[in-house]
């Protein structure tokens, strides 16, 4: 696996609480992404980053925020967790522009009760 670490790997939290997921890479790749995976929906992009402090929204960004203060770290925050945010979250990285592959972390399974 490429040098991507997601933490935590599993988390159970209560509705209304803030949650932060961390993605750490050791590849010095420029692009970082947060996806969520739900049955029947494949992977959907939440937010992405194309450099330190450069982030933008993806397809399903409502209720999520991100920060990237260092090249190696990309944080995903659920501002006030809801049951609809129960999902498996994947971080991915990509090195170049245009025609390069993405490398994925192992995922974080989040349950909001």
């Amino acid at each position, binding site marked *: 696996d490429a040098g991507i670490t997601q933490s935590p790997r599993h988390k159970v939290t209560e509705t209304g609480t803030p949650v932060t997921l961390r993605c750490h890479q050791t590849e010095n790749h420029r692009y970082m992404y947060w996806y969520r995976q739900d049955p029947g*929906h494949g992977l*959907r*992009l939440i937010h992405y980053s194309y450099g330190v402090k450069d982030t933008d929204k993806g397809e399903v960004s409502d209720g999520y925020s991100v920060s990237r203060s260092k090249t190696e770290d990309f944080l995903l925050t659920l501002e006030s967790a809801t049951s609809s945010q129960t999902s498996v979250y994947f971080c991915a990285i990509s090195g170049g522009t245009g025609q390069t*592959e993405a490398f994925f972390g192992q*995922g974080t399974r989040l349950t909001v009760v």
Partner: protein
Amino acid sequence: SQQGEEDPQALSIQEGENATMNCSYKTSINNLQWYRQNSGRGLVHLILIRSNEREKHSGRLRVTLDTSKKSSSLLITASRAADTASYFCATSFNNAGNMLTFGGGTRLMVKP
């Protein structure tokens, strides 16, 4: 909304048979990629085909791309039980974020 749609959603075959999965997409693309996901794991890149390519091979994998029909196919030859996984196509188009848009995936089961 998903850019890519895989077909079939699920496929069950015997070991040694070939498996074909199809992907259709909606807009012009820069490249199309196929990924594999074993249960409970992250996605792993299999192969990338550029928009100006029509066919590409990698080991037992063969990918075709028809940009006029906005479709791609992934063929796994001589399948093995270890090929059991979900397979996703992902499309990339010229954009600042180098983003990939994924389809819903095909669940492949290879029976020994």
